[in-house]
C-alpha cells in the first residue's frame, strides 16, 4: 500500500478521487455536526451552553495528536527507506498540525475561562500540548533550514521522531498527574457502549470528529500535491541551471 503510493506520480493519480470523497465528506459532516452541536444537542447540566465548545475543542485535540503521530510514522519511513514522498508528507502536514493544535489551545483556553475561571493554568496536559505546538513550529523551521533539500527533510524527520515522546505525555497526563483538565472519557472503545458522557453529546462529538478527519484528509492531499509540484518546479530550475 505504502509502496503503491510511494511513487509520487502514482500518488497524484490515485489521490484525485480520494480528494473528492474527503471534500464532500468534510462539507456534509461539518454541516451536520455543527447543527447537532449548536442546536441539536442539550446544554450540559452544570456547564450549560459552554459545553458546546467541546465539539470544536476535542476533535481539534485529537487531530493534533493524529497529525503528529502520522508525521512521526512518515519520518520513520523516510529515514529508513528514504521515500521522498514521506519526507514531503512531513513538510506538507506540519503546518496543518500546528493549526489544529492552535485551535485546540485557543478553544481550550476560551473554555477554561468560564469553567476554571482562568484562561490558562500550567498543568501537565496544557503544557504538553503547548510543547506539541512548538514542536510543530520546529519541524516547519527545519524543513527549509539547509541549502540541501534532502538534508532539511531528514533533519525534520529526526526531530519528529524525538518529539514522539510527547504523545503519551499528552494522552496520559490527565491520568498521571492530578490536573484541572478532566480525564479522557473515550479512552477505550468498550466505553463507547456506555460512555462517560451522554449519547446525545457523544453523537455530535463523533460527527464533528469525522468532519475534522475529512478536512485533514483534504488538506493533506492538496498540500502533498502542491509539494510534489514545487519539487517539479525546483527540478526544472536545476535542469536549466545545469546547462
Amino acid at each position, binding site marked *: 500500500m505504502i509502496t503503491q503510493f510511494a511513487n509520487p506520480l502514482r500518488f497524484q493519480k490515485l489521490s484525485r478521487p480520494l480528494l473528492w470523497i474527503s471534500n464532500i465528506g468534510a462539507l456534509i459532516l461539518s454541516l451536520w455536526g455543527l447543527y447537532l452541536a449548536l442546536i441539536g444537542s442539550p446544554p450540559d447540566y452544570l456547564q450549560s451552553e459552554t459545553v458546546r465548545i467541546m465539539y470544536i475543542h476535542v476533535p481539534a485535540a485529537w487531530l493534533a495528536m493524529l497529525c503528529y503521530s502520522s508525521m512521526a510514522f512518515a519520518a520513520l519511513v523516510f529515514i529508513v527507506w528514504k521515500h521522498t514522498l514521506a519526507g514531503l508528507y512531513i513538510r506538507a502536514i506540519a503546518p496543518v498540525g500546528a493549526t489544529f493544535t492552535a485551535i485546540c489551545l485557543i478553544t481550550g483556553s476560551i473554555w477554561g475561562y468560564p469553567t476554571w475561571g482562568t484562561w490558562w493554568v500550567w498543568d501537565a496536559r496544557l503544557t504538553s500540548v503547548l510543547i506539541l505546538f512548538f514542536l510543530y513550529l520546529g519541524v516547519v523551521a527545519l524543513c527549509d533550514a539547509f541549502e540541501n533539500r534532502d538534508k532539511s527533510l531528514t533533519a525534520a524527520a529526526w526531530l519528529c521522531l524525538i518529539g514522539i515522546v510527547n504523545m503519551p505525555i499528552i494522552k496520559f497526563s490527565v491520568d498521571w498527574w492530578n490536573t484541572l483538565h478532566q480525564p479522557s472519557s473515550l479512552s477505550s472503545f468498550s466505553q463507547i457502549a456506555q460512555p462517560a458522557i451522554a449519547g446525545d453529546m457523544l453523537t455530535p462529538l463523533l460527527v464533528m470528529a469525522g468532519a475534522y478527519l475529512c478536512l485533514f484528509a483534504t488538506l493533506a492531499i492538496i498540500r502533498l500535491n502542491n509539494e510534489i509540484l514545487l519539487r517539479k518546479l*525546483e527540478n526544472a530550475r536545476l535542469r536549466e541551471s545545469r546547462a
Partner: protein
Amino acid sequence: MTLFTGENLASVRNGRIIFETLSFALSGGDILALTGPNGTGKTSLLRMMGGLLDYQDGTMSWDGAPVTDSPPCHWLGAENPLKAKLSLWDNLAFWYGCLHSSCPPDAAHDSTHDKDSAILHAMEAMNIAHLKDTPLRYFSTGQKRRANLARLFLHHRPLWLLDEPATGLDFETKQILIAALEQHTKSGGIAVIATHRPDLWHANQNLDMREQQQSKPEVCLHTSAARTTNV
C-alpha cells in the same frame, strides 16, 4: 602616464613580515600578474591595493593623489558575494544600488543610464541572462562565479582587482573573461590579477612575490613601522 603607483609598501601579518619594500607603477592599459607560491602574499598585496588591508609602511597613489580609502576599483575576491536565496536579478540589482550610490555612472563608459538595461547588459556579457529569475542556490560552481564576474559590468571602474579569477571557470567562460579584460584595458583600464597562471591573462607586467620575501624571514615585534623596529 602612470595612473596607479605604490612605493616600498610593507605588510606585517600577525608578527610575520610578508613583504617589506614592494613597489609597483601601473599606467592605463596595463595588466599586472601577481605570482608566487602559496603564502607569499599575493592576496595580501591585492587587498592592500583595494584598501582592504592596512599597510605598515609606504605610500600608494592614484592619479597623482595619495589613496585614502580605496582607489575607484572593482574587487573580485575568492568568494562570491551573492545571496543564495535571492534570484540572480535581485542580487545584481543590489550590487547596482551599492555601486551607483558611491559614484554616478560617467557618460564616457556607462552607455546605459537606467538600472534594468545595465543589469541586463551585465548578465548578457557573462551569458547568464537565461537564469535571470533563478535563485543563486541552484547555480553550479561555475555559474556562481559567472554571476560574480557580471558585477564588473554593472558600473565602470578603471581598476579591476581579481584574486584567482580562473577558479571554478570552465573553458569558454575563461575566454569571455579574457576578452572582457582586453576590452577593459583597451579603454584605458587597469587590471591586477593574483594567479598561478600568468600566461593565461596576457599580462604585460609580472610581479613574482617570491622575490619580495627576504632571504631570512625576519619577524618583528611592532606591527606598525615594520621596517624600523625589527628584532
